[in-house]
Every structure is written in structure tokens, then in C-alpha cells.
């Protein structure tokens, strides 16, 4: 697989073309938080609504590249209706996948497992991420990692501001 096909997987392009949970929610009860990438101009605005320990609804607006916008869309689909603790867990797992060294993925996985320093990172549970695992190709393009993590950082900030879990 060439590098670019690894980055622009079909599911990513699908979420870029047809973003899920696009729009706004009334504030309050929803909580609004903005995420900016000042270097490249990408932006996301999240509207998050919690209900009894569950992330009951989420809407996203913003603009940016296919990676930032598809990551936001995939995230919204993955976290909607989940408990706060599961959402926190997903954020951790996703960010761990994004911080993993590229040699820990794909061809060189044996080398990675013999490397003690990165063994905890190599243990990222890609299966738990479901469709989100499609974004793992991003780590081969280090400057794009911040595109993929933009909405996730905004979601974590949102939960922190609400004081959830």
C-alpha cells in the first residue's frame, strides 16, 4: 500500500464527504467548546450534551482538511450514547494510537515489540477503536497528527470544563 492510500482510506474520505452529527445544539443545556489549529487554520466547534453520566448528544461544526474533519465525524459517531468513562477511555486510546511511533505499526511490528520503551504504546487496542482505527495511517505523516487529534483535544477539554468523570 502506498503511503497516501494508507492516509486517505475510504472510510476517512466517506466521513469527510458526509460528516456525521454535523450542526449545533442549543447552549445550554449543551456545552460548546472550540478547537483551533493556529498553524494551519483548521477549526472545530463541539456541542456536547451530557445526561446522567452519558454523552447523550454531540454536534460538530468547523472547517479544515479531510483528516481533521473526518476524525471529528468518526469521533462523534464513536462517542455518542457512550458513558463518560467509556468516552474518556476512547480519548486515551485514540491519543495513544496517535502518539505511537510509526515503526510500531505495520511492517515493523516485531521490532516494536522488542523495544521495551514503546511496549506500552504498542499495546494500543486497535479493535476497541473500531472504525477509528482507520486513522492509524496518520501517524506515518507526523505533521498531520495534530489534524487528527484536534477534535479529540476539544472533546477532552469539554469534559474537563463540564467537570465530567
Amino acid at each position: 500500500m502506498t503511503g497516501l492510500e494508507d492516509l486517505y482510506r475510504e472510510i476517512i474520505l466517506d466521513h469527510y464527504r458526509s460528516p456525521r452529527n454535523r450542526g449545533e445544539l442549543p447552549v445550554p443545556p449543551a456545552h460548546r467548546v472550540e478547537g483551533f489549529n493556529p498553524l494551519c487554520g483548521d477549526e472545530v466547534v463541539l456541542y456536547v450534551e451530557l445526561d446522567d453520566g452519558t454523552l447523550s448528544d454531540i454536534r460538530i461544526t468547523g472547517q479544515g482538511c479531510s483528516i481533521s474533519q473526518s476524525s471529528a465525524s468518526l469521533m462523534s459517531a464513536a462517542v455518542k450514547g457512550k458513558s463518560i468513562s467509556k468516552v474518556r477511555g476512547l480519548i486515551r486510546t485514540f491519543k495513544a494510537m496517535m502518539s505511537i511511533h510509526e515503526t510500531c505499526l505495520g511492517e515493523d511490528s516485531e521490532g516494536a515489540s522488542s523495544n521495551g520503551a514503546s511496549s506500552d504504546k504498542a499495546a494500543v487496542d486497535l479493535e476497541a477503536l473500531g472504525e477509528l482505527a482507520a486513522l492509524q495511517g496518520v501517524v506515518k505523516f507526523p505533521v498531520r497528527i495534530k489534524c487528527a487529534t484536534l477534535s479529540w483535544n476539544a472533546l477532552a477539554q469539554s469534559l474537563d470544563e463540564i467537570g465530567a468523570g
Partner: protein
Amino acid sequence: MSSIACKADFPLLSQQVHGRRIVYLDSASSSQRPQVVLDTMDDYYRTTHANVHRGIYAIAEEADRRYEGARMAVGGFIGAPDPEHEVIFTKNTTEAINLVSSSWGRCNLRAGDAVLLTDMDHHSNIVPWLTLAEERSLELRWLGIDEQYRLDLSELDHQLDGVKLVACTAMSNVLGTIPPFAQIAERAHSAGALVLADAAQLVPHLPTDVGSLGCDFLAFSAHKMLGPTGIGVLWARRALLEEMPPFLGGGGMIRDVRHDGFSANVLPWKFEAGTPPIAEAVGLGAAVGYLESTGMEAVRKHEMNLTSYALDTLSERFGENLRIFGPPDAEERGGVISFAYRDVHPHDMAQVLDQSGVCVRAGHHCTKPLMRHLGVSATARASLYLYNDESDVDALAEAMAKADTLFG
């Protein structure tokens, strides 16, 4: 129309990326360096280096001679009438403009005074004035942009009323637009305003003469004109510089220091606190020499021809799928080509191009007010220089077409 500078003079251009020859189209951001610049800096460090303005020994005197020689060469390159006193070495264009806003601005601008900026300026010529405006309660006014991506000068005389300074780009780093700077300067002077030229994109690409431009301050960077990073230039009229207080304080910029104060050194060292970028100045001098031996008229002619070729080639190939942000006539613009291709986001376009070895910039190019005016969050930008030729433009077009297979 081959490149007028031999690509072989530039070691980086013979590199390969992703198994392909590098097609460098990001010179508006930072240019590459010819071998002679690398050799000159290397030679300086190997044979000459000592601190300037201090040592009484042979190599220190030679370091002085080379550093001050670079100042004279740079001054000659921009037509400075008194280069020995008027050419100030700074870190870059940004620092040069900050020098003016901090030193001249704080001494000369009072609450209610107006500064006229433009919607096509770089953040480096906006943020220093925003900072000072907040500190001094200044009024900032903005020259807009017309449908042909030119500065809208229809209200200029009205907008100049009460203005103390016009700070304007001499060539847009996004649109390529070359404003009628001499005309703006003349009208500004008639209205009693001084004029600062952000010439970061002008000096590398067009013959530059501060007298013909009519500016009072001119700022540019070495790394965009075949020189090293870490050094830029402020030129200003000597009478202004004499009246301005120092910018940064420290060694080298003083005549005397006492418990109760200091007196400043003479020009140009008053504005060069601390050990300056000596090797970088020497490298800049070599870059100026390279450009002069090529001839700036020839550089401009080559870039105009190549820009025309690029605009024609891209427009013919991509038709309505391509939107180019900038004047259509190469006479009115430099070789900076910002574009949007279909609905492919500029970052994704840059990523696709990179796979073909084509280096372009994608983003807001430090011009967020301009991006808002254009109604986009970012553009992709290919920029040309003397080492580019038609094969580079053709490679760009081929690589752009590959976006269709991914994003089709």
C-alpha cells in the same frame, strides 16, 4: 525558457524525495541557497571568525571587514544612498518591522493617531501595529482589495487623512499582487504620513531601489533571497534613524554606560545590540553577489515569463476546477500562485503533491485578514524563483491531477 540560474548551483535541488527529484515551489516561504553562499559562510567560519567591533587582531579586523562589507553590498543592492549608516541588520523582516513599531512608533504616535494597513499584509506587518494600537490607543485603518486582487485605492486620499504611517506590503505573499507602491508613497507623503514597505517578497524578486519606491522604511529577510536564515534588514532614511531611540539594549549599541544611564552608539550599531549574525551577514553578502551576477532585471523577466506559463498551463488543464487567487496579468504580480482545486482542502493537496516530490505551502500564510476577505480558511500556494523552470510547473500540474484519483 529554461531557468536562468543553473539548478546545479543549488545542492538541495539535486536531492530526491520519495524517490523523485525535488520540485521546490515554496520559495516565497524560504528560498534555497547556492553553493557560493554555503562556501562563503563555511570559509568565514574556517578562516576568519572572531567577534566584530571588538578585537584588535588580524582575524577580528577581517571579520569586521567582511561584516561591514556585507552591509555595503546589501545597501548597494537596494539603492540605499548611505548604506554605511542606513542598513541595519536584524533577525528577519518581522524583527525589522518590530524595530520600527517599538522605536519610531513609541516616539511618534499618540492616542488618536492613525496607521493605515492593508487587507493583504502579512501578520508581521499587522501584529506589531495591533500591539502598539492597543498600547497607545491608535486608530488602525485598512486598505481593501478589489475584484482583480489589487489594493483598492479609490478612497486612499480620504483614508490618509490624519494618518501618521502607511505600513504596506510591496508584494503580497499570497496573491502575488505588486501594489503601485511609489504612487501610494507619494500620496501618503502629501498627506504628511511616512511609509513603511514590507519588502520581504519584493527584494528577492524585483530590482529594488528605495528612492524609486519612495518609502521611508524598508524591511526584508535574507532567507527568501538565497541567503541564510537568522538575518534580515531594516533600511530607513538616516534622518529618521538618528532621531529614533535604540530598540534592544545591550553590548555593542552603547557609547557609554553609567550607574544612572547610558548613551547610545552611532548608526548603524545603535540598533544592533549583542553579537550580530556575522556569518549570516557574510552569507547574505554572497547571496546579493549571486543575484547581482544573474541580474535582477533578468530574474524579474524570467519569473514573469514563468508565471505566465504557469497561469496558462494550470488554467488550461484544470479549467473551472481551479481557482487562482491573484491578478491574472503577470506584469502586475510576482510568481506566487495561490489556488484552490475543486473541493480538495489545501492541506490534502499539499500532501498529494508531496508524494510527487512537489513542495508547496498550504495554510493561511500568516494572512488571516486576507483569508477572511477571500472567504477561505487556507490556500495552497506554489511560488517560483530563479531556479525554477517549465519542468517544475509541468510537474506541479501532473501531481495536482493525482488528487482526482484520491478525491474523485
